[in-house]
């Protein structure tokens, strides 16, 4: 039986719910969102409640993660960026656990849904706009003119910068979605070849399946990291408005 490698992303309404004509039915992706937040919450709360001076494995891991995010925020936004620590850290935890739980065979990768990643990226971008305008007022529009731009270039720079600003949330959403989708499609294709190839030639794609699967473990972390660090960078830009660029160079 031939199955499309995209079949794994299809959803069915398991529990149809509709409120005011809006479809809120529960499907596999929604269930796995719950799994993700349940696992993440249990592990993190357990790690957070032990608070030993010499940490155990779980506490170490959680502390490493928290310290990792804290360093990321400090480097991109500075000390005042710690206000966003809960948001940024939860985002990282949610994406990381989604990516990893999605790697369990039979599970659903929540982050392989473009709408899920888009919701996150627009949330982040929206917050950065709100922070920018509330901190700098109309001057925040100066983000469209990079510092040191000669006057005659400004009419050219503004459209380019507008495009780059619009590209930010889109690229953020598409990067995560595409990476997750591509990885799982690749695994499905290779595993499909393993099944249809049989014992004689099937071992070759199977070796690749295992290799790609291991690679996906790295990608799961890297994509969560990239999403989070870009979140920090965008928020940092809103915070410092050009100041950050001067720091960076």
């Amino acid at each position, binding site marked *: 039986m031939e199955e499309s490698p995209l079949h794994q992303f299809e959803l069915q309404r398991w529990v149809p719910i509709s409120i005011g004509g809006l479809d809120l039915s529960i499907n596999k992706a929604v269930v796995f969102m719950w799994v993700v937040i349940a696992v993440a919450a249990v592990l993190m709360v357990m790690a957070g409640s032990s608070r030993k001076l010499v940490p155990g494995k779980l506490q170490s891991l959680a502390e490493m993660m928290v310290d990792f995010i804290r360093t990321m925020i400090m480097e991109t936004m500075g000390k005042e960026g710690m206000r966003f620590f809960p948001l940024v850290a939860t985002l990282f935890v*949610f994406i990381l656990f989604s990516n990893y739980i999605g790697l369990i065979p039979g599970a659903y990768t929540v982050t392989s849904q473009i*709408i899920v990643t888009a919701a996150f990226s627009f949330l982040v971008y929206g917050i950065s706009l709100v922070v920018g305008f509330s901190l700098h007022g109309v001057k925040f529009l100066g983000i469209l003119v990079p510092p040191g731009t000669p006057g005659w270039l400004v009419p050219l720079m503004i459209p380019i910068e507008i495009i780059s600003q619009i590209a930010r949330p889109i690229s953020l959403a598409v990067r995560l979605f595409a990476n997750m989708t591509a990885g799982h499609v690749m695994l499905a294709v290779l595993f499909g070849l393993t099944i249809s190839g049989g014992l004689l030639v099937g071992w070759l794609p199977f070796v690749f399946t295992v290799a790609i699967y291991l690679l996906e473990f790295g990608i799961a972390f890297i994509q969560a990291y990239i999403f989070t660090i870009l979140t920090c960078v965008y928020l940092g830009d809103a915070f410092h408005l050009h100041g950050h660029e001067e720091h960076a160079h």
Partner: protein
Amino acid sequence: MPQFEPDFFSSLIFWEVISFGILLFVLYKYAFPGILSALEEREKKIKDSLDQAEQHRSEAERRLKEYEAKLNAAGKEAEAILVAAKERAQRLLDENEQRLTAEAERIKGDATRQIDQERRKALQDIRAQTTELALMVAEKVVQRSLTEADQRRFADEALEALSKSQPR
């Protein structure tokens, strides 16, 4: 691609917001404060320990310098004592030598004087006895032929000769 079909968009967004909100709340309330404070506690502890170690180190260094200085001073003192003792010993030695030399000189002088005295006394004794003996002999030899006066003169001549032949 199934992900681009908008059938499930509304339910996915809705449940995502709810899930994310719950997770944010739980972590914000029950996980992050504990982990962050544990991290900060540990950082503080490590920093304190390092500070303390640094303090101990400088203290130890200071003590070492102190001891070295003391040791140095003690060495110098010992050297000074040694030099003084040597000087004193040399002086005593010299004094003793001088004293002994003087004593020896004195004893030698005494002995010489005594010997001289004894010699003189012996000479006198010998002279007296010899005179007597000569007189006796002469008396016997020339008892009749000589007068008392002649006897005296001969005896004196003999004595003279004797004292000339023995000048000391």
